C-alpha cells in the first residue's frame, strides 16, 4: 500500500500529546512553550472566580514526581490532587506508569505548593481511562487539608471551568477554559476542554465555579489551539471507591493492566462487530469501511492529471488509545483501503504496481513489547470475489493473552483495477482477533451479482 505521509501530517497526525513532562524533553525546547504559555496567561485576565478557586484548591494540589530509585533526578513529573480526607490522591496513570510497571526501579514523591515533600505509594490504576490512585506513605501528611468533591451532574456546554496543575515544572497555575461536553468519536469517554494544557499538568484537576471536580487533565492536541482533554470525574470517583482500601502495589502492575485491557478489548470488539460496514462507494466492490462512531476517516485521491496509477484511499483511525508506557499504546483499531484504477497503464504495468503496493507493508518485528508478526496467507473466496488475504498476529510479551492483528487484502479479479485494504487491531485477545479478521474479510464482496460483472 502506498505510504502517504501528506495525509498523515495534514489529517491524522499532531495527535494527542500526553501532558506528562519527562526528563527527556530538551531544556531549549521546553522553555519556548513555557514562555508562550506564560505570555498567554498574562494576557487573559484571571477572573475573581479563578482567584477564589486557587485559594481554595492550592493546599489540595501537589506535583507528582517519578524518581529513579537510586537517585533524586526526576524521570517524569505530573500533577495530582486530594480526593479524600485520608489523603488519597488522583493523578494520571501515564504520570506514574514507570512506577506501576517497574516498581523496583522507580519511586514516587509529591511536592506541595509550599515546597513540602514526601514519598507516595500507588494503590490502584485504571489504564483505560488513564487514572491512578495514590496515597502518601505518611498517613498524616495531608491531614486537615480537605479534599476536592466530585460534581454529580454534567455542566452545561460553554460554562467556564478551571484546570489546575504545575505546567512544565514552572509552578502551580490555573488555566481558564470552557467545558464542551464529550469529545466526539471517542470510544473511551473524554471531555473536550477549550483551554490550554501543558506538559506537567497531567493528573491535575479541572473544576467548576464551585470548585467541584469536573475532570482530570490528560492530553492536548498540539496541531490545534486550546484543544485539550479531560478524563470525566466519574471515573476518578469510581477508582477512589474501588481502590480506597487497597494495599499499596509493590509488584509490576502488568497482570492488572492485562486484566483491564482484556475487558476493554472485549467491549471494543463487541461494539465494533455489532456495527455494519459503511460503503466505500466503489462501483464493483463492497469494501469494508468502518462507521465513524469511534473511528475517524480521512480520504484522498490521486490528482486527475496523473498519467500513472489512479487511486482513492481512505484512512480510518481511533482517537482513543490506551497508554501503557512511553513505548506502548494499545487498545485501538485502524482500517484503510485503496481503490486502484490502472486503465491508463495496461495489464503488465498495473500488475507490477499493484504487487509493489501489496509488498510495501510493514508488520512488527520483535522488540521488548511484542513478538515478531507471524502470518498465514491464502486466496479466499468472498461470494465469488477472489481475494488475496494475509492475516498476521504478534503477541504482547508482558501482557499475555493480548495480540496485535493485521489483515491485508487485495482483490484479484481484474487485470487493470483492484482494491487493497488493511485492518489492524491493537491489543485484542486471540479469539477476538479471529472474529475481527473474519468480520473484516466478510466485508468484501461484489456490489452486484457476479453475472453482471465481466
Amino acid at each position, binding site marked *: 500500500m502506498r505510504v502517504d505521509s501528506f495525509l498523515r501530517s495534514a489529517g491524522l497526525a499532531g495527535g494527542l500529546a500526553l501532558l506528562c513532562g519527562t526528563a527527556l524533553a530538551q531544556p531549549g525546547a521546553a522553555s519556548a512553550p513555557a514562555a508562550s504559555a506564560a505570555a498567554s496567561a498574562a494576557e487573559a485576565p484571571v477572573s475573581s472566580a479563578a482567584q477564589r478557586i486557587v485559594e481554595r484548591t492550592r493546599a489540595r494540589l501537589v506535583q507528582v514526581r517519578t524518581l529513579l530509585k537510586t537517585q533524586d533526578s526526576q524521570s517524569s513529573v505530573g500533577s495530582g490532587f486530594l480526593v479524600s480526607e485520608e489523603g488519597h490522591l488522583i493523578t494520571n496513570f501515564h504520570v506514574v506508569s514507570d512506577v506501576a510497571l517497574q516498581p523496583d526501579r522507580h519511586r514516587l514523591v509529591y511536592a506541595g505548593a509550599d515546597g513540602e515533600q514526601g514519598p507516595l505509594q500507588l494503590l490502584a490504576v485504571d489504564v483505560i481511562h488513564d487514572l491512578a490512585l495514590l496515597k502518601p506513605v505518611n498517613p498524616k501528611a495531608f491531614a486537615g487539608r480537605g479534599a476536592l468533591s466530585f460534581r454529580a451532574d454534567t455542566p452545561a456546554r460553554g460554562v467556564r471551568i478551571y484546570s489546575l496543575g504545575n505546567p512544565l515544572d514552572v509552578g502551580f497555575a490555573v488555566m481558564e477554559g470552557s467545558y464542551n461536553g464529550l469529545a466526539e468519536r471517542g470510544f473511551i469517554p473524554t471531555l473536550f476542554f477549550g483551554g490550554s494544557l501543558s506538559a506537567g499538568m497531567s493528573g491535575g484537576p479541572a473544576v467548576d465555579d464551585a470548585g467541584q471536580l469536573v475532570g482530570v487533565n490528560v492530553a492536548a492536541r498540539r496541531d490545534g489551539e486550546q484543544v485539550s482533554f479531560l478524563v470525566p470525574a466519574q471515573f476518578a470517583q469510581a477508582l477512589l471507591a474501588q481502590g480506597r482500601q487497597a494495599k499499596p502495589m509493590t509488584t509490576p502492575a502488568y497482570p492488572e493492566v492485562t486484566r483491564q485491557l482484556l475487558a476493554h478489548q472485549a467491549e471494543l470488539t463487541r461494539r465494533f462487530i455489532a456495527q455494519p460496514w459503511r460503503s466505500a462507494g466503489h462501483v464493483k466492490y463492497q469494501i469494508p469501511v468502518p462507521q465513524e462512531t469511534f473511528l475517524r476517516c480521512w480520504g484522498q485521491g490521486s490528482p486527475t492529471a496523473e498519467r500513472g496509477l489512479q487511486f482513492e484511499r481512505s484512512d480510518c483511525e481511533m482517537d482513543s488509545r490506551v497508554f501503557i508506557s512511553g513505548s506502548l499504546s494499545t487498545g485501538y483499531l485502524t482500517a484503510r483501503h485503496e481503490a486502484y484504477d490502472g486503465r491508463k497503464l495496461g495489464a503488465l504495468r498495473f500488475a507490477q504496481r499493484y504487487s509493489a503496493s501489496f509488498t510495501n507493508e510493514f508488520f512488527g*518485528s520483535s522488540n521488548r513489547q511484542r513478538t515478531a508478526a507471524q502470518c498465514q*496467507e*491464502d486466496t479466499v473466496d468472498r461470494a465469488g470475489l477472489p481475494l488475496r488475504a494475509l492475516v498476521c498476529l504478534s503477541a504482547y*510479551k508482558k501482557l499475555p493473552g493480548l495480540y496485535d492483528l493485521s489483515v491485508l487484502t487485495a482483490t484479484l479479479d481484474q487485470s487493470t483495477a483492484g482494491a487493497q485494504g488493511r485492518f489492524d487491531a491493537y491489543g485484542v485477545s486471540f479469539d477476538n482477533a479471529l472474529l475481527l479478521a473474519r468480520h473484516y474479510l466478510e466485508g468484501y464482496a461484489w456490489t452486484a451479482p457476479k453475472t453482471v460483472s465481466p
Partner: protein
Amino acid sequence: MDRPEDRLALIEWIGRDQRVVRSVDVHQWPVTLGRGLHNTIVLDDPQVAEQHARIEPDDNGQLHLSVGATRNGLWVDHRHLVTGDRLPLSVSGVALHVGSAQLRVRWQGEALAPEEVIAPAGRWLRLGFWPAAGVALVWLVMLALQFWIGLDPGAEVSDWLPFALGAPLGLMLWCALWALGSKVFRHHFDFVGHLSVAAPGLLAMTVMEWLMPQLAASLDWPWIAELGTWVQTALMLALLWAHLRLVLPAPRGRALGALNTAFVLLAVVGSSVYLTMQHRTTERWSTQLYLGTLPMPALRFDRAEPVDRLLESVQTLRAPLEARVRKAASDEDEDSAEE
C-alpha cells in the same frame, strides 16, 4: 643463453604468477648465490648475505646445496635451511627461496612431464564473442522490458536515459574491471571471457527474479518465491566464482579446491549469519514474511478457498506465539536475576 650444448643446469627466476621471469645457464660447478659481485648468481637483495649458498656436485656427481653465513637462511621446497646446512638436491626442478627471490634449479637428465594441451582458463565457460554478445543483448532486452514496465505511459525519451546509458555501460564496466584483474594475474585482458560469464549469469538472475515470484503467485505456492531468493544468492555466488576462475592464475588441483571450499564456506557462513541476524528481529527462518507478488487474473491457477480455511490456519499460530511469550517471560526473569 648461449652455448646450449655446454649447459649443465638452468636456474630460473619465478614471478608471482608462477611464470619464468628470467633464466641463467650453468656451464660449470660450483654455482654460488649471494649479494657479492663474485658470485655466479648475484642477488641484489638486502635480505641476502654476501655468500648465501653454494651448489656443487660431490664425487659421485650428486648435487648438494650448502648454506653460507646468512642470518635468514633459505628454503628448499618449503624446507628451511640455516648456516652450515648441507642438503643433497635429488630431483631436478627444485624450488629455492632466497631472500625475496623464488628460484628453480633444473639440471641435465630430468624426466619431463608430457606436453599439455593449450587450455584457456575455464574453457567450458567460454562462449566466444558473438554468442556472448547475443546473450548480453537478450539480457538488455529483458532489462528494457522491466524498465518500460516501471515507466508510466507517455514517458519522455529522456526518461529512458538511465537505462540506455546505465545498463550497457554498466555491463561493459563490470566485464572490463574483471578483465583488468585477469590482466594483472594472467597477463591477458580477457574481456570476452568475462562477458561470456557475466551475460548468461545476469540473464539467469533477471529471469529468475521475475519468474519465481510470478510462478509462486500463479500457483499460490509461496515457497517458490522463498526458494527464488536462494536461487538468486546461488546465481550471484556462481557468477563471482566464474569470474574469479578467469582471474586467478591457473587454479587447479589444490588451488582450485581451495577456491571451491572458500565459496562453499562463504555461502554457508554468509547465509547462516544472515538468517541468524534476521531471526533476531523476525523470529522466523524464511526470508519473506508473505508472498507480496499478486497474480494477474489470466495467470492465476490456484483455487480461492473459503475464509474459514484461512482462519483455521491462523489458529495454528496461537501455540507458537504463546510459547514465544513464555520464553520472553523466562528470559526476562533470568535478566532480572542476573541484575
